[in-house]
Protein backbone atom coordinates (compact mmCIF):
# COMPACT_ATOMS: atom_id res chain seq x y z
CA UNK A 1 0.00 0.00 0.00
CA UNK A 2 1.52 3.30 -1.06
CA UNK A 3 1.94 6.09 1.46
CA UNK A 4 -0.48 8.99 1.10
CA UNK A 5 0.64 11.91 -0.99
CA UNK A 6 1.08 15.30 0.73
CA UNK A 7 -2.15 16.51 -0.86
CA UNK A 8 -3.98 13.46 0.50
CA UNK A 9 -2.56 14.10 3.95
CA UNK A 10 -3.86 17.65 3.82
CA UNK A 11 -7.28 16.37 2.85
CA UNK A 12 -7.19 13.80 5.63
CA UNK A 13 -6.43 16.52 8.14
CA UNK A 14 -9.43 18.50 6.97
CA UNK A 15 -11.61 15.42 7.36
CA UNK A 16 -10.28 14.85 10.86
CA UNK A 17 -11.17 18.38 11.86
CA UNK A 18 -14.70 18.09 10.53
CA UNK A 19 -15.10 14.61 11.95
CA UNK A 20 -14.82 16.25 15.34
CA UNK A 21 -17.52 18.73 14.52
CA UNK A 22 -21.28 18.49 14.09
CA UNK A 23 -21.34 20.20 10.74
CA UNK A 24 -23.10 18.39 7.95
CA UNK A 25 -24.29 18.69 4.38
CA UNK A 26 -23.43 21.66 2.21
CA UNK A 27 -21.87 23.53 5.14
CA UNK A 28 -19.41 20.70 5.54
CA UNK A 29 -18.65 20.61 1.82
CA UNK A 30 -17.95 24.35 1.87
CA UNK A 31 -15.65 23.99 4.82
CA UNK A 32 -13.78 21.09 3.27
CA UNK A 33 -13.01 23.22 0.24
CA UNK A 34 -12.09 26.29 2.25
CA UNK A 35 -9.89 24.55 4.80
CA UNK A 36 -8.22 22.44 2.14
CA UNK A 37 -7.56 25.58 0.08
CA UNK A 38 -5.82 27.14 3.08
CA UNK A 39 -3.65 24.09 3.74
CA UNK A 40 -2.90 23.78 0.03
CA UNK A 41 -1.66 27.36 -0.17
CA UNK A 42 0.43 27.01 2.99
CA UNK A 43 1.92 23.84 1.50
CA UNK A 44 2.73 25.65 -1.75
CA UNK A 45 4.28 28.57 0.12
CA UNK A 46 6.38 26.17 2.19
CA UNK A 47 7.78 24.56 -0.93
CA UNK A 48 8.40 27.99 -2.45
CA UNK A 49 10.44 28.78 0.65
CA UNK A 50 12.65 25.77 0.08
CA UNK A 51 10.93 23.02 2.08
CA UNK A 52 10.46 19.58 0.60
CA UNK A 53 6.94 18.57 -0.37
CA UNK A 54 6.51 16.37 2.72
CA UNK A 55 8.08 18.89 5.07
CA UNK A 56 5.89 21.66 3.66
CA UNK A 57 2.81 19.49 4.19
CA UNK A 58 3.89 18.77 7.78
CA UNK A 59 4.38 22.48 8.39
CA UNK A 60 0.99 23.32 6.91
CA UNK A 61 -0.77 20.74 9.10
CA UNK A 62 1.24 21.71 12.16
CA UNK A 63 0.45 25.41 11.88
CA UNK A 64 -3.23 24.82 11.26
CA UNK A 65 -4.12 23.67 14.76
CA UNK A 66 -5.42 20.64 16.60
CA UNK A 67 -8.16 18.80 14.77
CA UNK A 68 -10.29 18.16 17.84
CA UNK A 69 -10.13 21.75 19.08
CA UNK A 70 -10.91 23.18 15.66
CA UNK A 71 -13.75 20.71 15.18
CA UNK A 72 -15.30 21.73 18.47
CA UNK A 73 -14.94 25.41 17.60
CA UNK A 74 -16.58 24.72 14.29
CA UNK A 75 -19.55 23.08 16.02
CA UNK A 76 -20.05 26.10 18.25
CA UNK A 77 -19.78 28.39 15.23
CA UNK A 78 -22.63 26.62 13.49
CA UNK A 79 -24.87 25.69 16.36
CA UNK A 80 -26.23 27.21 19.52
CA UNK A 81 -24.28 26.85 22.72
CA UNK A 82 -26.91 24.42 24.01
CA UNK A 83 -26.62 22.22 20.93
CA UNK A 84 -22.83 22.32 21.01
CA UNK A 85 -22.76 21.21 24.64
CA UNK A 86 -25.36 18.45 24.26
CA UNK A 87 -26.07 16.92 20.87
CA UNK A 88 -22.79 18.25 19.52
CA UNK A 89 -20.99 16.23 22.17
CA UNK A 90 -23.11 13.13 21.63
CA UNK A 91 -22.97 13.27 17.88
CA UNK A 92 -19.65 14.38 16.46
CA UNK A 93 -19.56 13.72 12.76
CA UNK A 94 -16.93 11.00 12.92
CA UNK A 95 -17.19 9.06 9.71
CA UNK A 96 -18.17 5.43 9.99
CA UNK A 97 -15.28 4.49 7.79
CA UNK A 98 -16.88 1.30 6.54
CA UNK A 99 -15.72 -2.13 7.75
CA UNK A 100 -18.50 -2.28 10.31
CA UNK A 101 -17.89 -5.17 12.68
CA UNK A 102 -20.04 -8.20 13.16
CA UNK A 103 -23.15 -7.38 15.15
CA UNK A 104 -23.22 -3.77 14.01
CA UNK A 105 -26.28 -4.35 11.83
CA UNK A 106 -28.10 -6.17 14.62
CA UNK A 107 -27.39 -3.41 17.10
CA UNK A 108 -28.66 -0.78 14.72
CA UNK A 109 -31.71 -2.90 13.92
CA UNK A 110 -32.59 -2.92 17.61
CA UNK A 111 -32.36 0.86 17.67
CA UNK A 112 -34.37 1.18 14.47
CA UNK A 113 -37.15 -1.13 15.68
CA UNK A 114 -37.23 0.62 19.03
CA UNK A 115 -37.76 3.95 17.36
CA UNK A 116 -40.31 2.54 14.94
CA UNK A 117 -42.40 0.81 17.59
CA UNK A 118 -42.09 3.82 19.86
CA UNK A 119 -43.77 5.95 17.22
CA UNK A 120 -46.45 3.46 16.22
CA UNK A 121 -47.15 1.94 19.62
CA UNK A 122 -46.84 5.25 21.40
CA UNK A 123 -49.33 6.92 19.09
CA UNK A 124 -51.85 4.11 19.50
CA UNK A 125 -51.44 3.88 23.26
CA UNK A 126 -51.38 7.58 23.96
CA UNK A 127 -54.39 8.34 21.77
CA UNK A 128 -56.60 6.68 24.38
CA UNK A 129 -55.16 8.61 27.29
CA UNK A 130 -56.44 11.65 29.12
CA UNK A 131 -54.90 14.99 28.19
CA UNK A 132 -52.64 15.11 31.24
CA UNK A 133 -51.46 11.56 30.77
CA UNK A 134 -51.07 12.18 27.06
CA UNK A 135 -48.86 15.19 27.75
CA UNK A 136 -46.72 13.39 30.31
CA UNK A 137 -46.45 10.22 28.28
CA UNK A 138 -45.82 11.93 24.95
CA UNK A 139 -43.15 14.19 26.44
CA UNK A 140 -41.31 11.23 27.89
CA UNK A 141 -41.67 9.26 24.67
CA UNK A 142 -40.38 12.16 22.63
CA UNK A 143 -37.23 12.49 24.72
CA UNK A 144 -36.70 8.74 24.70
CA UNK A 145 -37.27 8.58 20.95
CA UNK A 146 -34.81 11.41 20.27
CA UNK A 147 -32.21 9.61 22.36
CA UNK A 148 -32.77 6.44 20.33
CA UNK A 149 -32.36 8.36 17.08
CA UNK A 150 -29.19 9.98 18.38
CA UNK A 151 -27.85 6.61 19.44
CA UNK A 152 -28.65 5.18 16.02
CA UNK A 153 -26.63 7.89 14.35
CA UNK A 154 -23.90 7.92 16.98
CA UNK A 155 -23.29 4.19 16.62
CA UNK A 156 -22.52 4.80 12.97
CA UNK A 157 -20.05 7.41 14.17
CA UNK A 158 -18.38 4.92 16.48
CA UNK A 159 -19.43 6.61 19.70
CA UNK A 160 -19.05 4.36 22.72
CA UNK A 161 -22.08 5.81 24.48
CA UNK A 162 -24.25 4.48 21.66
CA UNK A 163 -23.08 0.95 22.37
CA UNK A 164 -23.83 1.45 26.07
CA UNK A 165 -27.27 2.61 25.05
CA UNK A 166 -27.78 -0.53 22.95
CA UNK A 167 -26.76 -2.70 25.90
CA UNK A 168 -29.09 -0.95 28.34
CA UNK A 169 -31.90 -1.06 25.81
CA UNK A 170 -31.41 -4.75 25.12
CA UNK A 171 -31.32 -5.62 28.82
CA UNK A 172 -34.42 -3.49 29.35
CA UNK A 173 -36.36 -5.28 26.64
CA UNK A 174 -35.33 -8.67 27.96
CA UNK A 175 -36.41 -7.73 31.48
CA UNK A 176 -39.70 -6.42 30.13
CA UNK A 177 -40.17 -9.61 28.12
CA UNK A 178 -39.62 -11.76 31.20
CA UNK A 179 -42.10 -9.72 33.25
CA UNK A 180 -44.63 -9.88 30.43
CA UNK A 181 -44.19 -13.63 30.15
CA UNK A 182 -44.64 -14.10 33.88
CA UNK A 183 -47.76 -11.96 33.98
CA UNK A 184 -49.24 -13.37 30.77
CA UNK A 185 -47.59 -16.70 29.97
CA UNK A 186 -49.23 -16.89 26.56
CA UNK A 187 -47.49 -13.75 25.30
CA UNK A 188 -44.01 -13.36 23.93
CA UNK A 189 -42.41 -9.95 23.68
CA UNK A 190 -41.22 -9.32 20.12
CA UNK A 191 -38.66 -6.75 21.22
CA UNK A 192 -37.55 -9.12 23.96
CA UNK A 193 -36.76 -11.72 21.32
CA UNK A 194 -34.94 -9.15 19.19
CA UNK A 195 -32.97 -8.05 22.24
CA UNK A 196 -31.89 -11.62 22.98
CA UNK A 197 -30.56 -11.89 19.43
CA UNK A 198 -28.71 -8.57 19.75
CA UNK A 199 -27.33 -9.10 23.25
CA UNK A 200 -24.27 -11.27 22.41
CA UNK A 201 -23.15 -8.78 19.78
CA UNK A 202 -23.77 -5.82 22.08
CA UNK A 203 -21.48 -7.28 24.72
CA UNK A 204 -19.06 -8.87 22.26
CA UNK A 205 -15.52 -7.69 21.55
CA UNK A 206 -16.16 -6.64 17.94
CA UNK A 207 -18.50 -3.77 18.66
CA UNK A 208 -16.50 -2.78 21.72
CA UNK A 209 -13.40 -2.50 19.55
CA UNK A 210 -15.34 -0.60 16.91
CA UNK A 211 -16.30 2.18 19.31
CA UNK A 212 -13.03 2.25 21.21
CA UNK A 213 -11.86 5.16 19.07
CA UNK A 214 -14.20 7.46 20.93
CA UNK A 215 -14.25 8.66 24.49
CA UNK A 216 -15.31 6.22 27.14
CA UNK A 217 -18.77 6.71 28.50
CA UNK A 218 -18.64 8.38 31.90
CA UNK A 219 -20.91 7.69 34.84
CA UNK A 220 -22.95 10.82 34.29
CA UNK A 221 -23.68 9.97 30.68
CA UNK A 222 -24.35 6.37 31.69
CA UNK A 223 -26.98 7.57 34.14
CA UNK A 224 -28.54 9.70 31.41
CA UNK A 225 -28.66 6.66 29.13
CA UNK A 226 -30.39 4.50 31.73
CA UNK A 227 -32.85 7.29 32.49
CA UNK A 228 -33.60 7.82 28.82
CA UNK A 229 -34.38 4.13 28.33
CA UNK A 230 -36.61 4.14 31.39
CA UNK A 231 -38.54 7.03 29.88
CA UNK A 232 -40.14 4.52 27.51
CA UNK A 233 -42.05 3.10 30.47
CA UNK A 234 -43.46 6.46 31.54
CA UNK A 235 -46.62 6.33 29.35
CA UNK A 236 -47.60 2.98 30.85
CA UNK A 237 -46.90 4.23 34.37
CA UNK A 238 -48.78 7.45 33.72
CA UNK A 239 -51.82 5.55 32.51
CA UNK A 240 -52.37 4.00 35.94
CA UNK A 241 -51.49 7.04 37.99
CA UNK A 242 -54.27 9.22 39.41
CA UNK A 243 -55.25 12.07 37.16
CA UNK A 244 -56.91 14.85 39.13
CA UNK A 245 -58.39 16.36 35.98
CA UNK A 246 -60.45 13.24 35.35
CA UNK A 247 -63.58 11.92 36.89
CA UNK A 248 -63.43 8.48 38.38
CA UNK A 249 -65.90 5.85 39.46
CA UNK A 250 -65.91 7.49 42.88
CA UNK A 251 -67.49 10.60 41.38
CA UNK A 252 -70.68 8.85 40.34
CA UNK A 253 -73.08 6.92 42.51
CA UNK A 254 -76.05 4.93 41.31
CA UNK A 255 -78.59 2.92 43.26
CA UNK A 256 -81.37 0.99 41.59
CA UNK A 257 -84.40 -0.89 42.85
CA UNK A 258 -87.48 -2.57 41.47
CA UNK A 259 -90.92 -2.49 43.02
CA UNK A 260 -92.89 -5.41 41.57
CA UNK A 261 -96.52 -6.46 41.75
CA UNK A 262 -97.27 -10.17 41.62
CA UNK A 263 -100.12 -12.44 40.95
CA UNK A 264 -99.79 -15.99 42.15
CA UNK A 265 -96.12 -15.35 42.70
CA UNK A 266 -95.46 -14.17 39.15
CA UNK A 267 -94.46 -10.62 38.34
CA UNK A 268 -97.20 -8.71 36.53
CA UNK A 269 -95.66 -5.25 36.49
CA UNK A 270 -93.08 -3.17 38.23
CA UNK A 271 -91.33 0.14 38.55
CA UNK A 272 -87.59 0.51 38.30
CA UNK A 273 -86.18 3.45 40.18
CA UNK A 274 -82.59 4.55 39.74
CA UNK A 275 -81.03 7.32 41.79
CA UNK A 276 -78.07 8.94 40.15
CA UNK A 277 -75.74 11.49 41.67
CA UNK A 278 -72.67 13.06 40.15
CA UNK A 279 -70.08 14.56 42.48
CA UNK A 280 -68.70 16.54 39.55
CA UNK A 281 -69.71 17.17 36.01
CA UNK A 282 -66.44 18.36 34.53
CA UNK A 283 -65.80 14.97 33.10
CA UNK A 284 -62.93 15.73 30.80
CA UNK A 285 -62.57 15.43 27.93
CA UNK A 286 -65.85 14.01 26.72
CA UNK A 287 -68.45 15.08 29.22
CA UNK A 288 -71.24 12.73 30.03
CA UNK A 289 -72.61 12.07 26.65
CA UNK A 290 -72.13 8.38 26.33
CA UNK A 291 -72.59 5.46 28.46
CA UNK A 292 -75.79 5.03 30.38
CA UNK A 293 -77.23 1.76 29.37
CA UNK A 294 -79.58 -0.87 30.55
CA UNK A 295 -79.97 -4.42 29.56
CA UNK A 296 -82.73 -5.82 27.47
CA UNK A 297 -83.31 -8.38 30.12
CA UNK A 298 -86.95 -7.55 30.18
CA UNK A 299 -87.09 -8.92 26.73
CA UNK A 300 -88.31 -6.49 24.15
CA UNK A 301 -91.82 -5.63 23.20
CA UNK A 302 -91.28 -4.03 19.88
CA UNK A 303 -90.15 -5.47 16.61
CA UNK A 304 -88.44 -2.19 15.96
CA UNK A 305 -86.10 -2.75 18.83
CA UNK A 306 -82.61 -1.99 17.60
CA UNK A 307 -80.66 -2.03 20.77
CA UNK A 308 -79.14 -5.14 22.24
CA UNK A 309 -76.18 -5.21 24.51
CA UNK A 310 -73.53 -7.58 23.23
CA UNK A 311 -73.84 -11.02 24.71
CA UNK A 312 -76.55 -9.98 27.09
CA UNK A 313 -77.90 -13.12 28.74
CA UNK A 314 -81.39 -13.97 27.60
CA UNK A 315 -84.25 -14.81 29.83
CA UNK A 316 -85.12 -18.46 29.68
CA UNK A 317 -88.74 -17.85 28.68
CA UNK A 318 -88.12 -16.15 25.38
CA UNK A 319 -87.43 -12.74 23.99
CA UNK A 320 -90.16 -10.60 22.61
CA UNK A 321 -93.42 -9.29 23.84
CA UNK A 322 -92.90 -10.16 27.46
CA UNK A 323 -93.06 -6.65 28.85
CA UNK A 324 -93.74 -3.13 27.73
CA UNK A 325 -92.27 -0.10 29.38
CA UNK A 326 -92.70 3.60 29.62
CA UNK A 327 -90.25 6.39 28.95
CA UNK A 328 -87.30 6.31 31.25
CA UNK A 329 -86.68 9.87 32.40
CA UNK A 330 -84.52 11.74 34.81
CA UNK A 331 -86.05 14.02 37.39
CA UNK A 332 -84.15 16.52 39.47
CA UNK A 333 -85.27 15.71 43.00
CA UNK A 334 -84.46 19.19 44.25
CA UNK A 335 -86.40 21.15 41.68
CA UNK A 336 -88.84 18.48 40.64
CA UNK A 337 -87.96 19.25 37.11
CA UNK A 338 -88.74 16.49 34.73
CA UNK A 339 -86.07 16.70 32.14
CA UNK A 340 -87.70 14.29 29.75
CA UNK A 341 -87.28 16.54 26.79
CA UNK A 342 -83.56 16.96 27.03
CA UNK A 343 -82.28 14.56 29.61
CA UNK A 344 -83.98 11.44 28.51
CA UNK A 345 -81.90 8.44 29.27
CA UNK A 346 -84.06 6.18 27.22
CA UNK A 347 -86.95 6.74 24.94
CA UNK A 348 -88.69 3.47 24.55
CA UNK A 349 -90.89 2.39 22.90
CA UNK A 350 -90.57 2.55 19.98
CA UNK A 351 -86.81 2.97 19.96
CA UNK A 352 -84.80 1.43 22.68
CA UNK A 353 -82.12 4.03 22.38
CA UNK A 354 -80.30 4.40 25.60
CA UNK A 355 -77.29 6.53 26.35
CA UNK A 356 -75.04 4.56 24.10
CA UNK A 357 -76.52 6.47 21.21
CA UNK A 358 -75.62 9.88 22.55
CA UNK A 359 -79.20 10.55 23.49
CA UNK A 360 -78.38 9.77 27.03
CA UNK A 361 -77.43 12.56 29.31
CA UNK A 362 -76.81 16.10 28.32
CA UNK A 363 -74.04 17.33 30.60
CA UNK A 364 -75.40 20.85 30.33
CA UNK A 365 -78.54 19.88 32.20
CA UNK A 366 -76.91 17.92 34.96
CA UNK A 367 -75.65 19.70 38.03
CA UNK A 368 -73.07 18.32 40.38
CA UNK A 369 -74.19 17.33 43.85
CA UNK A 370 -77.87 16.82 43.00
CA UNK A 371 -79.69 13.56 42.90
CA UNK A 372 -81.57 12.61 39.78
CA UNK A 373 -84.17 9.93 39.83
CA UNK A 374 -85.08 7.89 36.83
CA UNK A 375 -88.16 5.71 36.79
CA UNK A 376 -89.20 3.06 34.38
CA UNK A 377 -92.49 1.20 34.47
CA UNK A 378 -92.87 -2.17 32.89
CA UNK A 379 -95.91 -4.39 32.40
CA UNK A 380 -95.91 -8.08 31.60
CA UNK A 381 -97.47 -8.95 28.30
CA UNK A 382 -98.15 -12.44 29.55
CA UNK A 383 -101.51 -12.68 31.14
CA UNK A 384 -100.18 -15.08 33.74
CA UNK A 385 -97.19 -12.95 34.59
CA UNK A 386 -93.46 -13.31 34.03
CA UNK A 387 -92.11 -16.74 34.91
CA UNK A 388 -88.85 -15.23 36.26
CA UNK A 389 -88.13 -12.08 38.14
CA UNK A 390 -86.84 -9.47 35.67
CA UNK A 391 -83.42 -8.06 36.40
CA UNK A 392 -82.40 -4.57 35.56
CA UNK A 393 -78.93 -3.25 34.89
CA UNK A 394 -77.87 0.35 34.66
CA UNK A 395 -74.39 1.18 33.62
CA UNK A 396 -72.15 4.14 32.97
CA UNK A 397 -69.09 3.57 30.81
CA UNK A 398 -66.60 6.41 30.76
CA UNK A 399 -64.98 6.21 27.35
CA UNK A 400 -63.76 2.70 27.97
CA UNK A 401 -61.56 3.87 30.85
CA UNK A 402 -63.74 3.05 33.77
CA UNK A 403 -67.30 2.14 34.41
CA UNK A 404 -69.79 1.43 37.14
CA UNK A 405 -72.96 -0.57 37.05
CA UNK A 406 -75.76 -1.68 39.32
CA UNK A 407 -78.20 -4.57 39.17
CA UNK A 408 -81.58 -4.85 40.79
CA UNK A 409 -84.28 -7.47 40.94
CA UNK A 410 -87.70 -7.35 42.50
CA UNK A 411 -86.32 -8.64 45.74
CA UNK A 412 -82.93 -7.08 45.75
CA UNK A 413 -81.89 -3.45 45.18
CA UNK A 414 -78.44 -2.73 43.86
CA UNK A 415 -75.66 -0.23 44.40
CA UNK A 416 -73.33 0.48 41.55
CA UNK A 417 -69.77 -0.66 41.82
CA UNK A 418 -66.77 -0.25 39.51
CA UNK A 419 -66.53 -2.63 36.61
CA UNK A 420 -63.94 -3.26 33.99
CA UNK A 421 -64.37 -1.64 30.65
CA UNK A 422 -65.31 -2.17 27.95
CA UNK A 423 -68.38 -4.15 28.78
CA UNK A 424 -67.33 -7.72 29.53
CA UNK A 425 -68.84 -10.37 27.30
CA UNK A 426 -70.46 -12.10 30.26
CA UNK A 427 -71.58 -10.25 33.32
CA UNK A 428 -72.90 -12.00 36.32
CA UNK A 429 -76.21 -11.08 37.79
CA UNK A 430 -75.72 -11.09 41.53
Amino acid at each position, binding site marked *: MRPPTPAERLRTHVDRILDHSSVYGSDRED*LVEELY*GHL*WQRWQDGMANGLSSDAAADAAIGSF*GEASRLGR*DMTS*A*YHSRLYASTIGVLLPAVAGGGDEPQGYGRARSLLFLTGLFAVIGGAIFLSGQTPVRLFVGASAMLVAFCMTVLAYRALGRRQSWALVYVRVLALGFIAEGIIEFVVKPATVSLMGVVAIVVLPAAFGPDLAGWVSV*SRRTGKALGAVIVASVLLYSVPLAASVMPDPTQASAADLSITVSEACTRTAGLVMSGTVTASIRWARTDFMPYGLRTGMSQTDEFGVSSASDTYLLPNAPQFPYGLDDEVVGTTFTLVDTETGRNAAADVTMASWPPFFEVGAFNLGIDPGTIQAGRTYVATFVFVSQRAAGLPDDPAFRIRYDHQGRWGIQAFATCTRPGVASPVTTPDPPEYPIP
Partner: protein
Amino acid sequence: MNDDQRREPEQKPEGVPHLSHGDYGLLILGLLSRREMYGYEIMTELRDTTSRAIDLPEGTVYPALRRLERDGIVEGRWVEAATGTPRRRYYKLTLKGERALADGLAEWRRFKAAADSVLG
Protein backbone atom coordinates in the same frame (compact mmCIF):
# COMPACT_ATOMS: atom_id res chain seq x y z
CA MET B 1 -6.69 9.91 15.26
CA ASN B 2 -7.55 7.78 18.19
CA ASP B 3 -5.33 9.49 20.71
CA ASP B 4 -6.23 12.83 19.32
CA GLN B 5 -9.90 12.08 19.68
CA ARG B 6 -9.62 10.75 23.19
CA ARG B 7 -7.62 13.57 24.70
CA GLU B 8 -7.77 17.24 24.09
CA PRO B 9 -4.56 18.82 25.27
CA GLU B 10 -5.33 22.47 25.76
CA GLN B 11 -1.92 23.74 24.73
CA LYS B 12 -1.20 27.21 23.48
CA PRO B 13 1.99 28.29 21.78
CA GLU B 14 4.21 30.24 24.09
CA GLY B 15 4.06 33.99 23.85
CA VAL B 16 0.65 34.01 22.19
CA PRO B 17 -1.71 36.39 23.95
CA HIS B 18 -5.09 35.06 24.98
CA LEU B 19 -7.81 36.40 22.74
CA SER B 20 -11.47 36.11 23.49
CA HIS B 21 -13.91 35.46 20.65
CA GLY B 22 -14.79 39.15 20.73
CA ASP B 23 -11.19 40.38 20.55
CA TYR B 24 -10.35 37.94 17.79
CA GLY B 25 -13.44 38.94 15.87
CA LEU B 26 -12.55 42.62 16.26
CA LEU B 27 -9.09 42.02 14.79
CA ILE B 28 -10.63 40.20 11.85
CA LEU B 29 -13.11 43.01 11.30
CA GLY B 30 -10.26 45.50 11.45
CA LEU B 31 -8.45 43.65 8.71
CA LEU B 32 -11.54 43.25 6.58
CA SER B 33 -12.25 46.96 6.84
CA ARG B 34 -9.15 47.48 4.71
CA ARG B 35 -10.24 45.19 1.90
CA GLU B 36 -11.96 41.95 1.05
CA MET B 37 -9.79 39.01 2.14
CA TYR B 38 -9.84 35.22 2.32
CA GLY B 39 -8.91 33.15 5.35
CA TYR B 40 -5.30 32.44 4.51
CA GLU B 41 -4.76 36.10 3.68
CA ILE B 42 -6.32 37.21 6.97
CA MET B 43 -3.99 35.01 9.01
CA THR B 44 -0.93 36.04 7.04
CA GLU B 45 -1.87 39.70 7.35
CA LEU B 46 -2.54 39.34 11.07
CA ARG B 47 0.80 37.72 11.67
CA ASP B 48 2.75 40.18 9.52
CA THR B 49 0.98 43.29 10.77
CA THR B 50 1.62 42.36 14.38
CA SER B 51 5.17 41.22 13.68
CA ARG B 52 4.11 37.76 14.83
CA ALA B 53 3.01 39.05 18.22
CA ILE B 54 -0.33 37.49 17.34
CA ASP B 55 0.38 34.17 15.71
CA LEU B 56 -2.59 31.92 16.31
CA PRO B 57 -3.10 28.44 14.88
CA GLU B 58 -4.21 29.24 11.37
CA GLY B 59 -7.32 27.10 11.39
CA THR B 60 -8.86 29.16 14.17
CA VAL B 61 -9.78 31.88 11.72
CA TYR B 62 -12.45 29.73 10.09
CA PRO B 63 -14.73 29.11 13.09
CA ALA B 64 -14.39 32.83 13.82
CA LEU B 65 -15.29 33.78 10.26
CA ARG B 66 -18.24 31.40 10.19
CA ARG B 67 -19.48 32.78 13.48
CA LEU B 68 -19.26 36.33 12.13
CA GLU B 69 -20.98 35.26 8.95
CA ARG B 70 -23.76 33.52 10.90
CA ASP B 71 -24.31 36.76 12.82
CA GLY B 72 -24.51 38.77 9.58
CA ILE B 73 -21.37 40.78 10.36
CA VAL B 74 -19.38 39.56 7.38
CA GLU B 75 -20.45 37.92 4.16
CA GLY B 76 -18.46 35.49 2.09
CA ARG B 77 -18.36 34.61 -1.57
CA TRP B 78 -16.45 32.05 -3.56
CA VAL B 79 -13.96 33.30 -6.13
CA GLU B 80 -12.46 31.06 -8.76
CA ALA B 81 -8.66 30.90 -8.73
CA ALA B 82 -6.13 29.92 -11.37
CA THR B 83 -6.42 26.48 -12.90
CA GLY B 84 -5.22 23.81 -10.50
CA THR B 85 -5.64 26.10 -7.52
CA PRO B 86 -8.52 25.66 -5.06
CA ARG B 87 -11.23 28.31 -5.02
CA ARG B 88 -11.03 30.97 -2.35
CA ARG B 89 -13.77 32.27 -0.14
CA TYR B 90 -13.47 36.01 0.25
CA TYR B 91 -15.08 37.86 3.15
CA LYS B 92 -16.12 41.47 3.47
CA LEU B 93 -17.86 43.56 6.09
CA THR B 94 -21.59 44.05 5.91
CA LEU B 95 -23.26 47.26 7.08
CA LYS B 96 -23.93 45.55 10.35
CA GLY B 97 -20.27 44.57 10.44
CA GLU B 98 -19.18 48.18 9.94
CA ARG B 99 -21.32 49.25 12.85
CA ALA B 100 -20.00 46.36 14.93
CA LEU B 101 -16.45 47.39 14.12
CA ALA B 102 -17.12 51.03 15.08
CA ASP B 103 -18.71 49.96 18.35
CA GLY B 104 -15.91 47.50 19.04
CA LEU B 105 -13.22 50.07 18.36
CA ALA B 106 -14.88 52.60 20.65
CA GLU B 107 -15.08 50.01 23.38
CA TRP B 108 -11.50 48.96 22.81
CA ARG B 109 -10.26 52.54 23.00
CA ARG B 110 -12.15 53.12 26.23
CA PHE B 111 -10.62 49.98 27.66
CA LYS B 112 -7.13 50.95 26.44
CA ALA B 113 -7.42 54.44 27.93
CA ALA B 114 -8.55 52.97 31.22
CA ALA B 115 -5.72 50.45 31.20
CA ASP B 116 -3.19 53.17 30.29
CA SER B 117 -4.38 55.35 33.14
CA VAL B 118 -3.52 52.54 35.52
CA LEU B 119 -0.40 51.19 33.88
CA GLY B 120 0.99 54.54 32.82
